[in-house]
């Protein structure tokens, strides 16, 4: 019996024709490029054999195997646009087991195992509908894949909250979206930034700027997403058009 969405692996194909849907398998990949975004975050561009693009919002699982066989797997959002070479932007967490290695140790040419692209809920395929992106901390990473997916999208608003100036990711690109971007800092003040947390009033203001309800994507630490989603659910007509991803 055919299972939807799965290649059986034995599906007959014409000679020389690649299978229509590659099976989801762990793939050995190589770090093709590495760029420090700020003192605690690094973007790794991956050379993934057989990669055929992804949907904005998707992520990959990355698995590391130590010499003694111990394995650790973590999920990282793709911060690249759907048709760009795949890249992940990794935020070092203090008690992390994998992120300090990916940010501080891994080098160009090193091998990683990758599973993906993954995700069928927190995804966006470009539509003419207005878009509101709400990011906390490294939650801005998957949201970048959305604005890279539709650079000419006419009606995009972006709300982004970081602790301090040095934690901000992709500032230059964000500024290019002009007045529809509000960058907040919660622990310090700086020119060009709103001082203080994103709150219900910030969301209300952003929603009012659209002629009709936008599709909303919220990503960041769990406590951030819970607060934003709770307010947004109250403020919009159709809560099903709010998509959330919690980083923990």
């Amino acid at each position, binding site marked *: 019996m055919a299972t*939807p969405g799965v290649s059986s692996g034995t599906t007959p194909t014409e000679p020389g024709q690649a299978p229509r849907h590659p099976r989801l398998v762990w793939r050995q990949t190589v770090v093709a490029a590495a760029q420090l975004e700020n003192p605690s975050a690094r973007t790794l561009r991956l050379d993934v054999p057989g990669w055929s693009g992804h*949907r904005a919002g998707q992520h990959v699982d990355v698995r590391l195997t130590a010499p003694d066989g111990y394995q650790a797997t973590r999920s990282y959002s793709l911060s690249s646009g759907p048709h760009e070479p795949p890249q992940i932007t990794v935020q070092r967490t203090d008690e992390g087991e994998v992120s300090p290695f990916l940010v501080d140790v891994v080098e160009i040419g090193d091998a990683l195992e990758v599973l993906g692209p*993954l995700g*069928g*809920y927190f995804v966006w395929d470009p539509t003419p509908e207005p878009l509101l992106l709400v990011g906390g901390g490294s939650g801005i990473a998957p949201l970048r894949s959305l604005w890279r997916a539709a650079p000419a999208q006419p009606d995009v608003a972006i709300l982004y909250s970081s602790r301090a100036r040095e934690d901000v990711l992709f500032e230059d690109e964000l500024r290019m979206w002009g007045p529809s971007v509000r960058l907040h800092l919660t622990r310090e003040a700086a020119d060009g930034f709103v001082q203080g947390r994103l709150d219900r009033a910030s969301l209300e203001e952003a929603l009012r700027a659209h002629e009709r309800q936008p599709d909303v994507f919220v990503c960041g630490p769990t406590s951030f997403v819970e607060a934003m989603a709770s307010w947004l659910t109250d403020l919009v007509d159709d809560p099903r058009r709010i998509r*959330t991803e*919690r*980083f*923990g």
Partner: protein
Amino acid sequence: MTFVDGNALAGALALAFGCEMTGSEGVCGACGLRHGLAEAKVYLRCPGMVMRCPRCRNAEIVIVEIEHQLHLTVRGLASITFRSDTPDPAAVT
């Protein structure tokens, strides 16, 4: 222990079920809530991964990987609804 959401299980569930699952819905076997799997409360490295009902916290799915075998206990879900047109996780629209 802080939680994440069902998005974090996308890889394990896709390997287990053979298709993208985070767009699917489940019905909690304890309280009857119908919810997207992406909206479940997920606890990682418990050890293992535990997916809980977002309303009543009932353990719906438990996933443990032992020596390259994925063990799933789907003890707390009354049903799962798949879209029959769920795209392959690796497909690009």
